[in-house]
């Protein structure tokens, strides 16, 4: 292990057991206020429905909880600690002011059913965000209800289906490029469509002739990610849209990669009929270890009648209101109005940026991806040389010769103080290294990343075993995922 990184150093770090292992009867972190009404006889009130014992729940004090979760937290990597180059995930800076405004009392404590008269603040937020997102996407109408990208896909395809259904035929299938994210086919299945794969061409884009061949009146929509998961802008988007539209189909855009487009080009302008956004990617709401997200779906006018309900409308008295009377609506996809807290954060992000900031953000995101690409070209195999937008996908082809796979390189990157890139897809690149720096990285951090990646490539040549055994600097070494799945232990049990 002669290679050293300038990025990280090992440091003493606290161990911590399961919270259950710290429990002891009589410890408590809670105290209730004095009861200002008479005590009740629970047995009398509940009868046999009374619960006698809540099970093996922990009994611990407040300081133990603070330490428990503080210690646990120090075992995590995070954007706040460094570059998080997960392709397709857009791990950008999560501004703290977003967290502050989301916690303002009226917003944090607003009940979803409180009278509209005293909900004008929340409604104004919905409305303002809606207007911004429509302007950004170039679309005509939007629903904020979906709770994540995949949920947005569901709402979007439901609208696609409702649209076709209203025309008399819901159609049978959805075309999905082989480079697509797993949620695309999974969603299509949930909406009762069969999935038909669309091959990419040697430039990593939709093969227009294949599309032409596969497109027919059975196809409800093409689900396209643009830029696609190779980070490549579908340059023939106009032709693609025309082919789809010519047969009465709809163009669905997975907006996961909107970070490459905001302020520079609008999907609504290049023929998209339905698209979802990921507020937790493009619009800076935090990933929080896996969620929550928010997946608004924007549509063209023709699909507006099918939006999930309710929608926000202007009333004649100048106030805002929810409109439920939407006979053609696909219905609800979630209770209440969606992940409202994420709307607050996304809007705060938009306001902090303004038109100039959003454009600069997009430019920096694309600039960064190209810088990384330049830095690693030749060191790692670049299966598609088509220009990159906000991310770049390499393959482990050169390293695989030494038996080192993308996941090994990823694990070794941890020792260099970085979170790995995405390894799981796109499936069209075997052994993919999918790298998205986002605009949030400065030159210094990227230089360190490139240096680390080059160093690993050298290690593969000189001492592959070090890479295969990585990580070496973490509190646990490589974990056995196979064993975990073979005999799942999914909860703690008392000894």
């Amino acid at each position: 292990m002669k290679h050293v990184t300038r990025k990280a150093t090992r440091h003493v770090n606290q161990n911590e057991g399961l919270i259950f292992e710290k429990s002891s009867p009589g410890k408590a972190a809670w105290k209730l206020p004095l009861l200002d009404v008479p005590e009740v006889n629970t047995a009398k009130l509940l009868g046999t429905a009374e619960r006698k014992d809540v099970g093996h729940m922990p009994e611990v004090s407040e300081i133990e909880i603070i330490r428990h979760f503080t210690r646990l937290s120090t075992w995590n990597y995070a954007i706040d600690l460094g570059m998080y180059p997960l392709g397709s995930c857009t791990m950008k800076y999560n501004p703290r002011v977003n967290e502050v405004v989301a916690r303002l009392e009226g917003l944090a404590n607003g009940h979803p059913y409180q009278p509209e008269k005293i909900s004008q603040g929340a409604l104004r937020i919905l409305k303002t965000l809606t207007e911004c997102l429509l302007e950004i996407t170039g679309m005509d109408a939007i629903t904020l209800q979906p709770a994540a990208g995949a949920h947005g896909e569901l709402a979007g395809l439901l609208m696609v289906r409702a649209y076709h259904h209203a025309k008399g035929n819901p159609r049978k299938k959805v075309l999905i490029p082989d480079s697509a994210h797993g949620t695309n086919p999974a969603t299509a299945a949930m909406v009762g469509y069969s999935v038909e794969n669309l091959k990419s061409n040697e430039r990593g884009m939709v093969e227009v002739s294949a599309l032409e061949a596969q497109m027919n009146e059975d196809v409800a929509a093409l689900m396209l990610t643009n830029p696609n998961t190779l980070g490549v802008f579908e340059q023939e988007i106009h032709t693609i849209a025309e082919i789809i539209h010519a047969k009465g189909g709809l163009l669905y855009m997975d907006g996961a990669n909107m970070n490459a487009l905001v302020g520079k080009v609008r999907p609504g302008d290049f023929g998209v009929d339905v698209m979802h956004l990921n507020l937790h990617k493009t619009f800076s709401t935090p990933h929080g270890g896996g969620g929550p997200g928010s997946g608004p779906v924007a549509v063209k006018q023709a699909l507006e009648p099918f939006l999930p309900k309710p929608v926000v409308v202007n009333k004649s008295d100048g106030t805002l209101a929810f409109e439920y009377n939407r006979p053609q609506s696909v219905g609800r996809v979630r209770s209440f109005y969606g992940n409202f807290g994420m709307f607050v954060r996304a809007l705060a992000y938009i306001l902090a940026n303004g038109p100039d900031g959003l454009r600069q953000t997009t430019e920096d995101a694309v600039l960064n991806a190209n810088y990384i690409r330049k830095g690693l070209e030749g060191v790692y195999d670049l299966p598609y040389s088509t220009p990159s937008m906000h991310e770049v996908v390499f393959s482990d082809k050169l390293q695989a010769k030494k038996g080192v796979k993308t996941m090994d390189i990823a694990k070794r990157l941890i020792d260099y103080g970085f979170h790995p890139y995405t390894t799981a897809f796109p499936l069209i690149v075997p052994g993919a290294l999918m790298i998205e720096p986002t605009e949030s990285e400065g030159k210094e951090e990227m230089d360190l990343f490139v240096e680390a990646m080059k160093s690993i490539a050298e290690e593969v040549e000189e001492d592959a075993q070090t890479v295969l055994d990585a990580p070496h600097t973490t509190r646990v070494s490589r974990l056995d995922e196979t064993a975990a799945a073979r005999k799942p232990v999914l909860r703690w049990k008392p000894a």
Partner: protein
Amino acid sequence: MRYLPKSPADREAILKAIGARSIDDLFAPIPAEYRLNRDLKIPRQMAESEIVDWFRQRSKENGLDYTSFLGAGAYMHYRPVIIDSLISRGEFLTAYTPYQAEISQGTLQAIFEFQTMICELTGMEVANASMYDGSTATAEAAMMAVRVTGRSSVVVAQSLHPEYREVLATYAHHQGMPLVTGGFTDAGRLNLKELEQSITPDTACVLIQSPNFFGTVEDVAALGEIAHQHGALLVVSIAEAVSLGIVEPPREADIVAMEAQSFGVPLGFGGPYCGVIATREKFVRHMPGRLAGQTTDRNGKRGFVLTLATREQHIRREKATSNICTNQALVALMVNIFMTVYGKVGLRELAKQNLAKTAYAADQFGRHARVLFPGAPRFNEFVVETSEDPYVINSRLLGHKLVGGLPLKKFYPELGNAALWCCTEMTTRTAIDTAVGMLAESEAEEPSGEHAVEEVAR
């Protein structure tokens, strides 16, 4: 732009390194006719102070300083302050899904503990890492029952949260999943007779909520028996998690779909919340959503990983158990911390306070109006029927900064002037007395059958 860590010189240096003349070169792949050559028409870039001011204004317009009696799937419980202290740590807040286990043990161990506590509280054997919310968890639980049983239809209680039913209908629509609704009795519980008749050999599950939308605790044992007799599963939706501290969990259920918002999640005008699905071990491979599992590292040291991913979209694509990917992780962490704070004893005491406040309120309301559904136990919600339109009562209350119960006619026109009231440990006796006083203005002084409700075990 203050979030961007590059100086003009940095940008120049990078462009030069790339070999591009200008940033426009990099956007050349976008057909020229689509490129936006103007500013977006959105508000100008604002200072942080201006952003805070703007939202502060919105906050003031949003029910600030009102005391509310609303529940109906979104509950105002006290949130211990350490929840926000802890989830605000960048290492939790700004981490991604813990796919890279070696630098995600914090999130993973927390999920493992979360799963454990959900199992303990629901009486189930396995629980997932979260679903979007209670409504989608419920819909996905029904779909899971379909997968488990190989049957296709669902009998759903009318006393399941109306919006959950709407979501279920949306999801069911294109999956060939017929829905049959089961009505409720005068006790506010599912009508068992009607239920028996609705079940067919194609019924995958009976889907109920308990405590149900009216706050009434269902006879889960009886329902389980009926469902199981017909080879159907019992799926129980729980919208008020705090009830689990004092109400027997649905041990007879095969799948529990839960909304855990009550456990430390802000009302937040409806989201983000935290759905969860819990079930029997034998059904785990039919379950949607992420799961953390225990394993060991190369030195035999305990560690945790995301597991059983072969159920999920990123592996199985169109054959996955669900399309869910991003879930509600950080909200689940709030729930986790809440459960840890209250723990074994606190959860029971907390639930008891809810029970006491509600019993007191129902009793007081019962002196002036009819409290519906006597004869079955309830948790922290109750339905009050007035002669006056509840919207009228509520606007009277609003003048006193009180938000009255939810008028039910929106969802249940058949219930006329009924409204759903909720009391939690946060509801003061003063607020209850004031509300009762204002409601009484229009109602005759005639005690209802409410006193009977108070002692159901009798």
